[in-house]
């Protein structure tokens, strides 16, 4: 197995006296995908925020590329892409300007060319000059995915990536995830229900009451392969 990109050890997080994550152990290797399933407020987004270096663990530790996420250096941060509930996009900039801005921050060569390429990949080339404030929620989600991936990160954190997407959007997002995995990127996806993407082996975890449990170990192989037949479909 490839070296672990993400490793957490007895990771815990509390907000005040309320524990959100308890003793979470997770390991994801390069080129592998994990899906974390849980209900609202289960701690999925908090876990992803900790892995992105945006929140500090209360107990235990989280390592990304061998670095403690509390002290990620610029090179470590450069290798992480995140699609969050919030789009991280500037409503008064056009789609193209948003992508060029982030490409510049990440030191991407030819930011303009990269922006145009990614706009085509997410099916928004015809709306490149539109300000993001005019976008529908689904279009914004596609653009946010392009923003997260434009710098070719080696770890992708996708918080409910299929939310608000139509069937075309779901297909595009699945294609993007497949391509990123094929490139060797580690992918962690959060979802409300069991998720599957054709052609991708997903390590499934369930998070409940702050505790993370592997579902992959509990599901027999034949059932696991049937699960993968649904493209991005999430059960409530």
């Amino acid at each position, binding site marked *: 197995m490839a070296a672990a990109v993400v490793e957490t050890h007895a990771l815990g997080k509390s907000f005040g006296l309320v524990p959100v994550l308890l003793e979470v152990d997770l390991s994801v290797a390069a080129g592998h995908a994990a899906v974390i399933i849980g209900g609202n407020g289960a701690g999925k987004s908090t876990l992803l*925020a900790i892995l*992105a*270096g*945006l*929140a*500090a663990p209360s107990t235990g530790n989280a390592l990304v590329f061998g670095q403690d996420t*509390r002290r990620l250096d*610029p*090179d470590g*941060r*450069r290798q*992480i892409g*995140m699609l*969050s*509930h*919030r*789009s*991280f*996009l*500037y*409503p*008064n*900039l056009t789609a193209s*300007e948003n992508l060029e*801005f*982030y490409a*510049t*921050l*990440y*030191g991407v060569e030819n*930011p303009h060319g990269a922006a145009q390429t990614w706009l085509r990949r997410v099916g928004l080339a015809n709306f490149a000059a539109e300000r993001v404030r005019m976008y529908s929620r689904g279009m914004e989600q596609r653009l946010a995915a392009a*923003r997260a991936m434009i710098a070719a990160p080696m770890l992708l954190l996708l918080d409910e990536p299929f939310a608000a997407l139509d069937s075309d959007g779901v297909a595009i997002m699945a294609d993007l995830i497949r391509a990123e995995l094929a490139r060797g990127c580690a992918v962690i996806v959060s979802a409300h229900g069991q998720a599957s993407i054709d052609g991708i082996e997903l390590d499934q975890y369930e998070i409940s009451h702050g505790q993370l449990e592997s579902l992959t170990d509990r599901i027999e192989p034949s059932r696991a392969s049937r699960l993968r037949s649904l493209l991005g479909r999430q059960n409530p």
Partner: protein
Amino acid sequence: MSAFAAVLSKDLRLELRSGISTIAMVALAMLVLVVLVFALGPGVARGPEAAAGALWIALVFAGMLGASRALLSENENGCIRALLMSPVDRATLYAAKLTASAVFMIVAVAAGAILTVLFFNLDFSGALARLAPILFLGVIGFAALATLLAAISGRARGGELLLPLLIVPMFVPALIAGVRASIVALSGAPMATARDWIGILVAFDVLFVTAGYLLFEHVIGEE
């Protein structure tokens, strides 16, 4: 393009499109000056003392309204998180935000200075030329303080309400020095007599620009 230039040009472009900060600051500066002229009355509202005081009150109020907008606007759609996740050095982010805030404020303060000279019946060309460097120092100090405190208060509940309460008391030394130096500039006295006051303004700027540059990473970091 460097990260500094990218963040700064993005902020300036957003401001050119919306004009929110600059228009609000210019309007407030005008309003403060008009109110003061009416409140002081035609007899008192003449002379460099009243003009300098009015101008710096306008600077403080306009700055409170808009100087921290460059940073607070990043909260929309969670963009601040994307900036923190990026490989850009946080001191560079501070420098870009400080510069953007200072540019917004300079526009408002320039308008305020012209109105002050008009309302208080002062010598136009000489007064403005002598005032400009003093106001510039005041703007830099205010923007440095506001950007740093906005980063701190942005993490607190009701931070935007807290911000003016933090800024004004800390800006008082610069305010006193700025008013005194401006009185000298507007009265036509030799600028050498304002050397000590200008020295305090420079020291204030150096202190808060340096503090912001060094502390920004720690105050805007993780949750």
